[in-house]
């Protein structure tokens, strides 16, 4: 008998008392009903608590803000589908040398990504209450590796994509895409259960909230 048949048989045998699956009481909150200003305020508060750096700007100011944040980067990578205008601001115009583009059809190697200082991505949805940004691998977010290996992640969140609480956010997402939920820079609580920011993932997380 195969292990599969054996295990399923054991489980069926274990359930011979035929327990009934209960109705799931979903009395928990499904929506938050905060307006956009309140959502932005809450998201900023939570991200700052995680030691992420956050700024709130008008959509038109995003390129300038990105350029400022990239000022010290010797090189950076962007997903091929990133808004072309974002990394072509006044300061980043002559960026041919330090700007790298990554896509599924033309991916950078891991070693190449390790040599890059920063990454700029968009995001799929954010959760204000928990300070969480979700990337779903869409063209403006790219492969998972690019937002992981460089040490500085600059992530743009559109204000319209901020949900109040987790259930609202997950309902906007296709669960079968490769997903990464990010809540602040990498951190550990492994030494005396005290949180320390900055381990293997990007040690610096800049979030630009675009109104």
């Amino acid at each position, binding site marked *: 008998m195969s292990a599969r048949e054996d295990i399923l048989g054991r489980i069926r045998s274990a359930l011979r008392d035929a327990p009934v699956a209960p109705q799931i009481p979903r009395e928990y909150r499904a929506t938050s009903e905060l307006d956009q200003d309140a959502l932005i305020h809450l998201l900023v508060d939570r991200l700052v608590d995680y030691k992420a750096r956050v700024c709130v700007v008008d959509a038109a100011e995003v390129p300038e803000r990105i350029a400022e944040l990239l000022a010290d980067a010797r090189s950076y990578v962007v997903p091929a589908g990133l808004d072309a205008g974002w990394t072509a601001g006044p300061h980043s115009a002559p960026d041919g040398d330090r700007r790298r583009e990554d896509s599924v059809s033309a991916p950078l190697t891991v070693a190449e990504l390790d040599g890059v200082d920063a990454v700029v991505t968009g995001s799929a949805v954010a959760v204000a209450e928990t300070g969480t940004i979700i990337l779903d691998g869409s063209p403006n977010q790219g492969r998972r590796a690019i937002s992981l290996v460089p040490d500085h992640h600059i992530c743009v969140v559109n204000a319209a994509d901020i949900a109040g609480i987790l259930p609202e956010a997950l309902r906007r997402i296709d669960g079968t895409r490769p997903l990464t939920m990010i809540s602040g820079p990498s951190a550990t609580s492994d030494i005396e259960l005290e*949180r320390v920011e900055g381990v293997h993932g990007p040690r610096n997380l800049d979030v630009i909230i675009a109104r």
Partner: protein
Amino acid sequence: MSTFLGMPSLPVFGTGNLHAAESFPTAAHRELGNAQLRANLGHATHTIRDKRLQVVSELPDWEQLRDAGSAIKESVMARLPELLEQFEQNFTAHGGVIHWARDADEANAIVAGLIRDTGETEVVKVKSMATQEIGLNEYLEEQGITAFETDLAELIVQLDHDKPSHILVPAIHKNRTEIRDIFLREMPGADPELTDNPAVLAMAARAHLRRKFLTAKVAVSGANFALADSGTLAVVESEGNGRMCLTLPETLITVMGVEKLLPSWQDLEVFMQLLPRSSTGERMNPYTSLWTGVTEGDGPQNVHLVLLDNGRSAALADELGRSALHCIRCSACMNVCPVYERTGGHAYGSTYPGPIGAILSPLLTGIESEENSSLPYASSLCGACYDACPVKINIPDILVHLRSVDVDSKRGKKKLPSQMDVGMKAASWALSSGKRLGLLEKGLPLGRLAAGPDQKITKLPGIAAGWTQSRDIPAPPQKSFRDWWAKEHHGPESGGTNAPAQGNAPADAHNNAQAKAQDKEDGA
């Protein structure tokens, strides 16, 4: 599969690192002698308790989330065969490969075979309870494959050739100075000027593992959740070592217990609120990765999942104990447990320590396995674990249930009744009649005699000696409560005519002053 319906079979128990090699009291006695351990654990568990309480109190619907979480898991257990088949179908449809393992040996052999097929001799690992449980690292080492633990606490434990003592923070028994010393001793190229600042230590781990992450071709992980309706797996982590292992290698092998399923994507909204707040006391953990089979051009292109039974079907067969399988490995129960806080995790022997381990380990292995029958007694039944559990596992009830399973199993094996059996029979005889109890109480002065001039009994005979091993018993009173009561209410000094007749005393009339006040009122 319907041929198996209604065909009862004996439970098949789990193997691997699930056993207490010595009884809990023996192990606990030794661990309690380690003052440094107790100080480290006291500090860490109190830190996390405060954090958990704070983030839990922020959510107005915490109890509703717990109710939903509990019901979802109960539903998973009731529908497990169907959900496993559904998950398999979806995961496979997305290019993943499923393997089934009856026990630890079979799972280890499958993983080693998959690694061998890649031609690699090194793998990076994400912290996983399932692979701890089956002893994967040790097995791989025998097979000539080196497994590098990448979670900071697992790395500390691995470098120190130690065993994990906590399911979330395996190095919780070490303080920062001890960790610094381990790094200096065991980490090649560690900076001799390394300080014990946690941030500095985390940086040292980053430098140590970076090259491994960037060059690894194979990773081994566990999984926190598996969603049946989409075939999606989830790993919840903090450091980014999980993302590294789940994203950069060509081959990913995940080992997961069959009970980790959730029926649907919607259920994730419940568990991703319950788990981070219960485990690290954070509103959300820094990173969660979800993948559904293979995504072309993004992440590992060879994706395997080993579904592990290893005693889970046996635990499921215990109708009163099966809810132990609802556990999402958050560790809140150990962080609030007065026993765990003092003995630490090593005293439990098994991969799963603390209150959940005290029920899960004997359920997975059977109560008769090695010293696991001592684990259900490793509790004062205070119930703090039940209050903290995000999926409302009634751990105290299951502890009591397993104690009775233990007593029944021991009784079944013996020809002669034990001292305990005799004592219990005698107590049952004495306590079932007021007359018999009264007769026995006449013997109290004998106890006073035995106590001697210092009014203490320091050594009881037989199995009762255990009671006096670490404390004395004060001499019994001169007369029993019942004698005193009778005298108070019938004797000349009570003076009351309304005193209740002997034997009708209210059960809660233990307070003399209250009883007297009542007498006066009645007499007025």
